[in-house]
């Protein structure tokens, strides 16, 4: 059959009508548990909750910059990196899950040169577990995915090392294994896998510890500087801290909606 201009336009118009009657929310975003993927927002994976697991509708972390000092930050970084087998590689191929950095690197838009002298000079940076995570949207294999409780997870088995997520993440929270990390590990924790060459990795809010009913390791050793809890619960520690104190987030204008809050 010869396609005529008139027929083509008819079919195109019907197709547009068909899309028009689909709810916009369904096209742009899809809710938890469904297999379909939205155009603008990523879908969220249902999490099975074990009997001992800690649960939340939306996990978030609050970092009190006033309570952070060199020793606490060193302890936190060391604890996280040692239990998760994060290697220390000299040069620019190092792997980082949580690290100390200057305030002006953390908050590109919020700081000016007349900050109070007593204010924090540096704080901890980690994956922000954004509400609208660019890394999840750009991952072609869905190795990076978001759980219903907001944690942005990595499936190391599925990562093909394309590093789109690293380009997508505006916070530089992701690291790529350019080499076998085991060569740079002094001790290994047998309960957590080391990663391998060619995969991306990052902080996972200690999802494996939450499943066992434990708080994230960094929170446990932070001596009160880090709080972790449910944003959906008005009685939670994080909500109380956010209500009491002034807090900022990293690059909020990018629209990623980070869920790591800094009290300043």
């Amino acid at each position, binding site marked *: 059959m010869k396609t005529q201009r008139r027929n083509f336009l008819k079919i195109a118009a019907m197709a547009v009508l068909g899309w028009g009657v689909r709810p916009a929310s369904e096209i742009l975003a899809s809710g938890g548990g469904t297999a379909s993927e939205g155009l603008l927002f990523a879908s969220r994976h*249902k*999490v099975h909750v*074990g009997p001992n697991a800690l649960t939340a509708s939306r996990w978030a972390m609050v970092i009190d910059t006033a309570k952070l000092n060199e020793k606490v930050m060193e302890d936190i970084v060391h604890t996280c990196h040692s239990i998760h087998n994060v290697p220390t590689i000299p040069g620019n191929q190092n792997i980082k899950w949580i690290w100390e950095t200057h305030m002006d690197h953390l908050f590109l838009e919020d700081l000016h040169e007349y900050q109070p002298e007593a204010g924090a000079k540096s704080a901890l940076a980690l994956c922000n577990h954004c509400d609208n995570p660019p890394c999840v949207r750009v991952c072609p294999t869905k190795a990076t995915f978001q*759980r219903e409780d907001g944690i942005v997870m990595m499936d190391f088995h599925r990562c093909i090392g394309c590093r789109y997520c690293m380009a997508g993440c505006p916070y530089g929270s992701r690291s790529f294994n350019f080499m076998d990390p085991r060569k740079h590990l002094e001790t290994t*924790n047998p309960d*957590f896998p*080391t990663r*391998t060459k060619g995969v991306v990795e990052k902080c996972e809010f200690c999802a494996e510890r939450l499943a066992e009913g434990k708080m994230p390791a960094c929170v446990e050793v932070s001596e009160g500087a880090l709080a972790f809890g449910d944003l959906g619960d008005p009685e939670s520690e994080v909500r109380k801290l956010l209500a009491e104190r002034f807090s900022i987030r990293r690059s909020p204008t990018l629209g990623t909606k980070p869920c790591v809050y800094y009290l300043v």
Partner: protein
Amino acid sequence: MYDKNKILIGLAVFVVFMTYPFWNNIGSAAYQRPEIEKPKNAKDCVESVEFMRAEHMAMLNDWRDEVVRGGEHEYHSTASHQVFQKSLTKTCIKCHENKDQFCDKCHATVSVNPYCWDCHVDPKGEKK
């Protein structure tokens, strides 16, 4: 018929090549299942021996997806009705401590190379 001889020679060469694995193995010993080391401190596996022998690879593959993507950490055994943690290092390797004598022995014999241990840590292997 043209080139009858060439075709017949070609066919003969083809048949010889195709059947090479069969007649090359005539007289050699049959495949024997390697003797693997059994756990010293446990009697029952999460499932029956027959099931584990045939399905352990599929089971581990399912476990990894269920744990990582679904957050399902508990495995309900159909053999003993006990609950186990779905974990290669925390469940399997707790009993089968010796990876060389358990995993590798069979895998080497049948020439398969799973990449589990590229990431997962074998506690004994790391000490060497």
